[in-house]
């Protein structure tokens, strides 16, 4: 059985339990063992702390990575924000040896050292490169052929040290969605930010000019739902959608599904309906759309 150390991040493990639950269900189905590592702190999150203090951001990220280096296991990160933080910190410290030395001086105070050997993987990389698209297709028990989805990639997905690989994770995302049988509907502003980072600075502006704009365009493209890979995008598009409906007096009602939930739907895993009930914008009608829910009965 392949094993990974898992980094859930604060948002998923405390707020969006449907994403954690779906991930556990899907990886269990795929025969992947997820190990918890003791002592992880915040990644730290890349919107506020990275801007507030680079030294602190790198020190805490290096501490988290040093915990993995001790275990010598691949790190799979479910949250895209955490992935960007840990990935960027690792590569920035590798690029700047003097900085690495300075950060290690900080870590030495607690008896730790950052070497830069930890393998930081986005969960999309694990699904495509380690598990494989063909393998995923074999697990699809209920092809989502009737489902038309609008892709929301999210800014953190374009994190890559090698510029030629900038689009890799986004392509993996497309490939996985296609493997479920769902139809990707282009709508023209896929790259437009969900508004979450901007909302940390100007909430109302972000809500009107990013989130609302994006949702309006998607509502007219014919998609049944939005698929995301980032918990912050999920929050902004799902939870804030209700706020937008109230504020602007427009009923949108677009379900927002995390990729792991989409896989749980396609694998027809028991408990998938419970995941969709945790959404703020009603998502359970999607189960009827895909031809009912077998509650995990493997209908083949």
């Amino acid at each position, binding site marked *: 059985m392949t094993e990974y150390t898992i980094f859930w991040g604060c948002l998923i493990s*405390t707020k969006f339990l449907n994403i954690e639950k779906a991930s556990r269900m899907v990886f269990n189905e795929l025969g992947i063992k997820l190990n918890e590592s003791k*002592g992880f*702190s915040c990644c730290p999150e890349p919107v*506020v702390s990275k801007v507030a203090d680079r*030294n*602190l951001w790198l020190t805490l990220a290096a501490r988290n990575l040093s915990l993995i280096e001790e275990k010598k296991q691949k790190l799979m990160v479910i949250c895209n924000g955490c992935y960007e933080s840990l990935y960027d910190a690792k590569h920035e410290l590798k690029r700047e040896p003097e900085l690495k030395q300075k950060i290690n001086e900080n870590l030495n*105070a607690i008896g730790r050292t950052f070497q830069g050997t930890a393998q930081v993987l986005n969960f999309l990389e694990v699904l495509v490169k380690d598990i494989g698209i063909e393998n995923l297709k074999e697990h699809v028990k209920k092809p989502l052929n009737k489902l038309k989805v609008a892709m929301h990639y999210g800014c953190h997905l374009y994190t890559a040290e090698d510029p030629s690989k900038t689009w890799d994770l986004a392509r993996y995302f497309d490939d996985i969605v296609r493997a479920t049988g769902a139809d990707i509907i282009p709508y023209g502003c896929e790259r437009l930010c969900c508004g979450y980072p901007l909302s940390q600075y100007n909430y109302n502006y972000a809500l009107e000019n990013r989130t609302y704009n994006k949702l309006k365009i998607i509502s007219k493209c014919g998609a049944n739902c939005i698929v995301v890979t980032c918990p912050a995008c999920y929050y902004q598009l799902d939870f804030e959608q209700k706020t937008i409906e109230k504020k602007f007096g427009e009923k949108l009602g677009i379900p927002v599904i995390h990729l792991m939930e989409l896989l749980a739907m396609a694998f027809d895993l028991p408990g998938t309906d419970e995941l969709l009930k945790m959404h703020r914008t009603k998502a359970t009608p999607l189960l009827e759309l895909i031809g009912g829910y077998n509650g995990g009965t493997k209908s083949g």
Partner: protein
Amino acid sequence: MIFDDIVRLLEQELKDYILGLQKMRTRRYIIDIKRPGAIKAAKLLAEKDVRLITISCVDNGLDFELLYHFDADGTIVSIRTFVPKDINEIESLASVLPGANWIEREIHDLFGLKFNGHPDFRRIILPYEWPEGNYPLRKPMEGIVPKQHRKVVSDLIATGQPIPFTSMAIKRRARVDLPPELPVASLREDYLKEVQELIKKTGFDKKVGFDWEKGGLKYR
């Protein structure tokens, strides 16, 4: 007394108080000294007949930056120290250096900073009818963290996570058949201690104005 003599004198008498020396440009230096040592340093210079030019006060939000500017034979040497606003007082220099008398009164009028032991602490620059306790150059007690980020920063320092693993989260996790707790730093005291030690080591707690006793930022 020339600059080199001043540095030698301060290093000899107040070594433990000196935090650093910066050359700003030719014949312009700033010496950072811990608060209790700053007045001692100013007194030492006064005793050696180094001329006090003036004292500047800057309101940084959480603290006052006080600069005692001295003229050392054409070189301007500033003794700099910081007074946290929750302390809001420092020893007066006026009894040793009469030239500091009016300057300290002016700083008090404008910023509300108290100079203990001042021989004549009357109002000097504001009109008589100006309301008591209103200091025109005093800013609200706020640090660098914008209002909307204060909770995130405060929780990050206090719990190791910007979104804390609360008892409510633990209950919710149990309700949906997830392991109620994860072995994260916010739920493990030994690991949280490591994280907080690093926060102190990087000086982030001081930068944002975190009060370890209260467990939150000094401002809301």
